């Protein structure tokens, strides 16, 4: 059946079965492949998108539940917090394989949007749902602090 979605500020109509995870609608139907499939059980965070500004695991979110919501993917990430985070990631060369990093960045933007100056402990708590098998965590932590510093001015 048809669903009307708002993705990255654009209205998009997609054909999907009710119960289809938002992840697969985004990736297979809308070809927005920056959002990644890692586990399918909301355990790794690679599929993190923003739904009305809140970091959300798209692999466990049904397409019917985001009608009327604002969905933002890594491709549509915009604004000063996003820029500070992405710049910090590049400045500190956080990435290795890079497959989890869209999700890491979506979560980091979520963290800094609600908590402009997180402690190490805040970061550990907030980011623990985002797995990185390359274990780039040390640099992710540092990059979040770096971005917080940039935003503080």
């Amino acid at each position: 059946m048809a669903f009307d979605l708002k993705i990255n500020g654009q209205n998009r109509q997609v054909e999907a079965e009710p119960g289809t995870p938002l992840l697969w609608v985004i990736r297979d139907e809308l070809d927005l492949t920056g959002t990644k499939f890692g586990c399918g059980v909301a355990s790794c965070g690679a599929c993190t998108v923003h739904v009305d500004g809140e970091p959300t695991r798209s692999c466990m979110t049904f397409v019917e539940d985001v009608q009327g919501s604002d969905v933002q993917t890594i491709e549509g990430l915009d604004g000063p917090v996003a820029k500070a985070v992405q710049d910090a990631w590049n400045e500190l060369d956080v990435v290795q394989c890079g497959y989890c990093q869209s999700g890491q960045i979506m979560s980091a933007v979520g963290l800094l949007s609600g908590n402009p100056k997180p402690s190490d402990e805040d970061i550990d708590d907030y980011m623990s749902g985002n797995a990185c098998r390359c274990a780039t965590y040390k640099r992710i932590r540092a990059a979040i602090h770096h971005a917080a510093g940039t935003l503080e001015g």
Partner: protein
Amino acid sequence: MTIQTNRRNFLKGSAAAATALVIGLNSRGVLAAGSSGAQLNPFVKIGSDGTLTVVVKHFEMGQGTTTGLTTLIAEELDVDWDSVKHEFAPADGKKYANLLFGAQGTGGSTAMANSYKQYRQAGAAAREILIQAAAQKWNVDPETVTIESGILTSGDKKAHFGEVAEIASTIEPSKEPRIKGNADLKLIGNPNLSRKDGYGKTNGSAQFAMDVKVPGMVYAAVIHSPKFGGKLTSFDAAEAKSVAGFIDAKAMPNNAGIVVYGKNTWAIKQAKDAIVAEWDFTQAETRSSDIMIAEHLKLLEEPQYSATKTTDFKATTAAIDSSEQSVEAEFVFPFLAHAPMEPLNCVIEPTETGVRVHDGCQFPGLTQPTVAAITGLKPEQVEINTVFAGGSFGRRANPTSDYQAEAAMAFAMLGGKTPIKMVWMREDDIQGGYFRPMAAHRVKVGIDDKGKIAGWDHRIAAKSIMKGTALESFAVHDGVDHSSVEGISDTHYGIPGFSLGLSDFVSPVSVLWWRSVGHTHTAFALESAIDMVAEKAGRDPVEFRLELLAGGDADQQRLSDVLKLAAEKSGWDDPLPEGRGRGVALHKSFGSYVAEVIEVSLNDGAIKIEKVTCAVDCGIPVNPDVIKAQMEGGIGYGLGAAMRNQITFTDGLVDQDNFPTYEPIRMSDMPDIDVHIVPSTIAPTGVGEPGTPPSAPALANAIKAATGLRVTRLPLAENGVEFA
């Protein structure tokens, strides 16, 4: 994989590749008509606007090849770092072989080691002919032509590379082009070069195979036997028919599984779960982990093979029996899954001349012939489009090219006309085998009245990774699979009365190299046992190791140096407050020397890993920041597995299925890591794997120091250690 001891054999089989270290000087040529750029050799492309594109022969799984190999050529050509582009090489074993393997592929932490001279020479050769071309164009002496920031200059004449590339492509470079002297290096050793793959991986634009979509593509998943070695007897897909987007399900011709076809990934996932299959388990693994462990321990009693030339168990036993004191320990290691972040997948599509495979392809030299054989093509008809790989840790370098072979089979079974995207779910990955083998070690050490080692009896049991594969003849000698004993059979500690035995565990469970291969267990057993001996002898662990390395050879010197550096930087000799403990471990692997000191804290009985101090000697540090990143990641990978990862079996069924039961290391587990690189002018060696081996034993030694508990079975969390 480690093939160090057998590299010569590999080279024999590929004399052409070896002598042409070299750059395939005959493959120059002007690019497609209409372009005024040129490919000056297999590794150097010049665009019409002068842009340098480096052709990278090793895939990028995060280890930094797109940065590292690009650095080497950009250095020789004096190009601004930010302007250099890169692309992955096509499948072509003649031009792009790994010079240490004699075939095109990445592994064994060899990407920089085998490419260093080749890529620098390719850059130097291109520089030479670009300068000559400019001299020709301007009718000046080549000696007057200089290059700065990618611009050729002579007097008041200036040109970018693109303006002389066509002329350059007609000039024959000298056989041994002169590379820069160390004093002139600007990019090699520069700690401030940004990663080449960083930007695309922070905005979602980087393309992994999972992101590839071609017109008319059908999605495919495979249902594998739930027990290793099982064969499909029948299946019922009735329930799958009600899944929207389900297309069909077909038994694979070898009865290894069922291919499920669908219109999208969600359809194949649901259909896969809805299909009921029956299997013949007559030849399958049906044992449980506790039985497998007991069988490994039993195999230690009578080693099948002597793993060193000097092994003499009778003499060793006599030496131990007549010693003042002795230490004895049994070590047990579980099967481990690699669990790269990107579940295994690839796309195969028909072309006019054959097929094209889009893959984060680690070993084109194996994948190309494998796909060709299944699809009835010649290897050269199989084109490989290498894209970014979302991690590997060894999993994608598979002698059977398992997931690519499944994609080729699924493609052929559908008639060979429809593009197929083969996707493994995370459950397929965790339960799909090619695990780090389970292993057991037994160590007995005699200590004389002066506190010195008198004899060391070491036995290992593990399933061989190499036996039965195409690599057997290279890696197995006199029955000993080097990858089962590496790190101990070739230890640089001067240990008198040393005997090493090996027995092969036999099982249908498939096994494979896992980041640092045999060193994953040998370093743990050896470095734990060294600490146990030092403690028994009343010696400081660092001092004791240095004494065992006092023989004066170059390896011992480099090991001693990294050990001293890590000890110094970690404040090894400074007293620790109550509730803290430090542990050290030292190991050489893949030609690199790494020492790690780990500090842990103990609060309410729970261990927290506070800090890791790492010292590494990997020869010339080409990209210091990439080296640091690989040490950080290699340490994290090793610590996570040591803390809590295991693949276990109940009656042949894998007990774990996804991250909730195979919990990866998380942000909150990650310690601070401080990496120190030893300056060097020796040829570079690997960094992708060598950070991993010392991490687990350094942690176990730190836990012993903090709690008094000596843990010799992994994972630690299942064997008496509570983590905060």
